[in-house]
């Protein structure tokens, strides 16, 4: 199995891509810790992993709060004694135009929507990586996979999301440079439009236009993103660091 005996922490593991990743990791032999703010989703994900004969620990916590993140890292170490893999998957979007004209008035994207998205997607990735790196440095082994997005290339209505996900790419490369000496590889998966709650609300007409731009003419499945997470987290990717892997059916080609 690809991840035999590895200990992996997956943030945002209660739903969508994070949940698919946790399940795939368990099936590949990893011992899995999932964290999420959504306790219900977290419990359902944990049950699914147990049903698949996986080992799992579920911890409720926020990736944006240092004390929460430290508590999760401590829980990983208490339960499994080490931390080999971190999947920074937790993410949110709050889509809005930066400025919008409605009824003759200019509406502005709120500070709250900017800050929430930057906090969860970018600061959360930085914070979880920082505190996970401490045991990884001591072990002289670690693999971190961040989650960017095709949104990082720019997308109308996603200024906050795009900025946060482009930030994740810069962060990935910098952490790869800083931590190579400790044998910690840091890479990034950039999903395209994937079947999750985040894309469930796309209106039919918009979706048709979107599919027309994807060479594979379909949305990605969460498990297809999970497979990329698993590959980059595995020792089969031992010579890859600082890279961004788009898993998007080709939509980013030529953008």
């Amino acid at each position, binding site marked *: *199995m*690809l991840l035999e005996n590895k200990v992996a922490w997956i943030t945002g593991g209660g739903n969508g891509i994070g949940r698919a990743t946790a399940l795939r990791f368990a099936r590949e032999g990893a011992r899995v810790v999932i964290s999420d703010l959504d306790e219900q989703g977290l419990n359902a994900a944990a049950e699914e992993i147990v049903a698949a004969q996986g080992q799992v620990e579920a911890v409720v916590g926020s990736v944006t709060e240092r004390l929460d993140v430290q508590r999760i890292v401590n829980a990983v170490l208490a339960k499994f004694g080490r931390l080999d893999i971190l999947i920074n998957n937790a993410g949110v979007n709050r889509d809005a135009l930066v400025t919008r004209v409605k009824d003759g008035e200019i509406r502005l994207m709120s500070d709250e929507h900017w800050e929430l998205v930057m906090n969860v997607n970018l600061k959360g990735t930085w914070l979880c990586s920082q505190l996970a790196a401490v045991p990884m440095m001591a072990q002289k082994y670690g693999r971190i996979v961040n989650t960017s997005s095709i949104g990082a290339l720019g997308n109308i209505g996603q200024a906050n999301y795009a900025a946060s996900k482009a930030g994740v790419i810069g962060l990935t*490369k910098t952490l*790869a*440079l800083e931590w*190579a*000496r400790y*044998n910690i*590889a840091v890479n990034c998966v950039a999903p*395209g439009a994937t079947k999750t709650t985040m894309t469930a609300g796309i209106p039919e007409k918009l979706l048709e236009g979107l599919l027309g731009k*994807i*060479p*594979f*003419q379909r949305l*990605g*499945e969460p498990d*297809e*993103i999970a*497979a*990329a997470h*698993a*590959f980059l987290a595995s020792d*089969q*990717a*031992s*010579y*890859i*660091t*600082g*890279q961004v*892997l*788009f*898993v*998007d*059916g*080709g939509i*980013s*080609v*030529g953008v």
Partner: protein
Amino acid sequence: MSEITMESNTFSQTSSPGRELAGKVAIVTGGSRGIGQAIALDLACNGAHIAINYRQSAAEAKKVIQQAESMGVHGLAVQADVASFEDAQGMVEAVVAELGGLHILVNNAGINRDSVIWKMTEEQWDEVIAVDLKGTFNYIRATAPIFKEQGSGKIVNVTSINGLRGKFGQSNYTAAKGGVIALTKTIARELGRFNVNVNAIAPGLIETDMVKEAPEKVRELALSEIVLGRLGTPEEVAWVVTFLCSERARHITGEIITVDGGQYL
């Protein structure tokens, strides 16, 4: 580059013990030595039947085929110059006839003829473009109708970080490898609707016998750039190719994956 004969390579590591490519048929150009050999054997280890080409040295190629067959798959060595359009067509036909189909194409064959631009000869330019760029086109051209018809297929092109960043003394090689990157993206778009995955890998300096024989200063310069502090092994490159040829990577297309230990960051 391709003129140096390799010692037999002990194939110590393989990717996952699974047989996720069972029954698939793969062509690996330049599969008799170096990175290509590791790719061919890792695909075989995962259950794929493999075909490799050779230009002159049949013995080398046959040795790789024997190693593959010892893993319980079929193998085929075909004499073919990748720079020849007709040879590519002939090899693809032979593979389909002998191995019963074609599912995977790895364009690995490559050479370099390094020289600064003010000393580079027309022959040096033409030879590298013919093998590295046109050779890749030749095999994609011969294979695409089959993949299109069957509505599936995997193409992996081997380029180089130098095709991304440029490299002193390698105007011919970097132009060819940069061309392969653009070719990869275009073919990904053209074959996407037929469910064909087209990707490339861009290795940094890899510990092949050819590199082992290179001047010490080549290694030293590379090591000073590589953040992981060591050269990669051919197997580490092969594992990425196997991933791209597997269903695990079925939603990945048009991508250039750098496998360089952070040499070009």
